[in-house]
């Protein structure tokens, strides 16, 4: 009976894995084939495997520039989001002051606006401040759109840190500023890691704001770069797949690097 149960469970897992990983494996195969080969047979294995397509994409199709731009914009945005978001969350969770909950509500309520509503005004603001078509402008927009969610996730975690710890640190001689860096932040690290991964993946794949706010080739991010291979009449499917594989590498690396912390944050009680 137990063996049958196990086998059934395994079957469900296999089916789900095939469902979830199938498109990824297919895209990976496409990335090693030329568009002509793909048109001949959509599902054939890569034989021969064109590894040189990666070099071609990186050097001749400008992926090096897109990759660098994406890295600059996303890493800067994630760093700012993490520092500002955790400070704001610490402050909202820890200090009792007038309008604390009002500020929290106003910050969080901005989540309800769909990007289509804000993007026109954002475009106008960026043009006025000379930030349109610049990586700095896009970075600031990314910080703005992700900050409420970051604060929301972190605030609930910071609020769970017992206030006795802050009191103990105060008696131990630490200032509020030091308490944030030496007590709050290290304890909240699992939650911080969660927001880092979440923000990184969301922003790395972000397309809508980038396509509206960036038009210059030199400032394009990866999703825009991939889009360039979709033409009006035809598309270079093979190159798009290669670009996708390049784009996915940092996400996998980040996830592998932080996943232990992520799981820690989701399962174990870090504050005991």
């Amino acid at each position, binding site marked *: 009976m137990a063996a049958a149960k196990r086998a059934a469970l395994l079957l469900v897992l296999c089916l789900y894995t095939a469902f979830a990983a199938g498109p990824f494996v297919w895209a990976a195969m496409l990335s090693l084939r030329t568009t002509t080969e793909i048109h001949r047979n959509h599902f054939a294995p890569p034989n021969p495997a064109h590894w040189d397509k990666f070099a071609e994409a990186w050097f001749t199709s400008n992926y090096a520039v897109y990759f660098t731009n994406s890295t600059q914009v996303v890493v800067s945005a994630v760093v700012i989001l993490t520092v500002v978001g955790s400070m704001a969350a610490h402050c909202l969770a820890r200090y009792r002051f007038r309008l604390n909950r009002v500020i929290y509500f106003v910050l969080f309520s901005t989540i309800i606006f769909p990007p289509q509503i804000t993007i026109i005004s954002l475009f106008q603001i960026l043009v006025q401040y000379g930030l349109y078509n610049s990586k700095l402008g896009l970075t600031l927009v990314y910080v703005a759109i992700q900050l409420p969610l970051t604060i929301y996730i972190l605030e609930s975690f910071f609020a769970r840190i017992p206030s006795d710890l802050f009191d103990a640190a105060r008696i*131990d001689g630490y200032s509020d500023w030091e308490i944030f860096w030496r007590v709050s932040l290290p304890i909240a690290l699992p939650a911080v890691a969660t927001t880092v991964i979440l923000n990184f993946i969301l922003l790395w794949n972000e397309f809508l704001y980038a396509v509206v706010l960036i038009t210059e080739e030199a400032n394009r991010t990866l999703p825009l770069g991939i889009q360039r291979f979709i033409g009006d009449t035809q598309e270079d499917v093979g190159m798009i797949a290669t670009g996708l594989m390049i784009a996915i590498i940092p996400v996998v690396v980040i996830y592998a690097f932080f996943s232990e912390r992520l799981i820690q944050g989701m399962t174990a009680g870090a504050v005991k």
Partner: protein
Amino acid sequence: MAVVTLDKLTKFYERGQVPAADAVSLEVNHGEFVVLLGPSGCGKTTTLRMIAGLEPISSGALSIDGRVVNNVPAKDRDIAMVFQSYALYPHMNVADNLAFGLKRRSVDRAEIARRVAAVADTLGLGGLLERKPHALSGGQRQRVALGRAIVRDPKVFLFDEPLSNLDASLRVSTRGEIGKLHRRLGATMIYVTHDQVEAMTLGQRICIMNGGRVVQVGAPLEVYKHPANTFVASFLGNPPMNLVPARITQSNGRLLVKVGAHLFELAAGRYPALTAGAEVTLGIRPEHIATATNAAEDGRFASIDAEVVQVEALGAETIVTARVAGVASELFARLGPDPDTVVGERRAFLLDRYAIHLFDAAGVRIPAHAAEA
């Protein structure tokens, strides 16, 4: 060591609300161990937090060694505090937890290592220095919390219900350790608890609080034997002091007290200020009630009839609950290990006249003549 003086310390959390601590005055002497004791919400923790510098003082003055420290931040008061939740930093190992306060005070590294090792040695934490708090048992965490206070060598130690999260047997042994620690360090210590056993065993003096106010300050046995009012009488002791309404009458120049349907004579000359007709509360501790068979001196005891409603044999003693006709509350008597009584029986209970306390209508103790049992 230091003298801590609280002069009418008051704390309002919200303007216009009832104060959490109301004009609390107390002087804690050099090397003294004082326990703030009271029920939940009586203001004892608020008072401790004001001393620690964790709560701003609404009014009144707090001085340490004669210097008013109302506006001195917590870190500059040279105070260490042990919290109910231990408040160990979960991301640091035991050694770092112990050293955290010293690092901020720019103590040099070799000295920190020496002091951490010494404290770890004293508290038996030697093998645990590399462990994180979540890998420690409750008792070990408590010792780390104690160590964190000791390692700083502060002027004053504050304890906020440090034993309440421990199981019963660990509580007894840790209580003993805290007592030893005080004798060894000779430091000024202020200890907050709602547990009267901790207060009685640890404190050189007890400060009993209720409703934000200090009700009585004194040595543990003095407070137990001479409670200032009915609150203290009923708060200390387990079971607490029996308190029943009574009326004073006079007959042939002798003072009598009427409890329910019973009328008996008070010990002669014991209450010089008492007059006939007064409505009072009569108090007697359970251990001062005996049953007929184990009372030797007849004249010393007043007899009342009561119906036994419960007998709790605890091994070393037996707690008997009885109902007296005409009295709403039940009477507790602490008897020997083998009392000759059963539930439902109606029998005589003997009250030691020299152990009777009388409280006036406001609940304040009526002074009694010194000749007490």
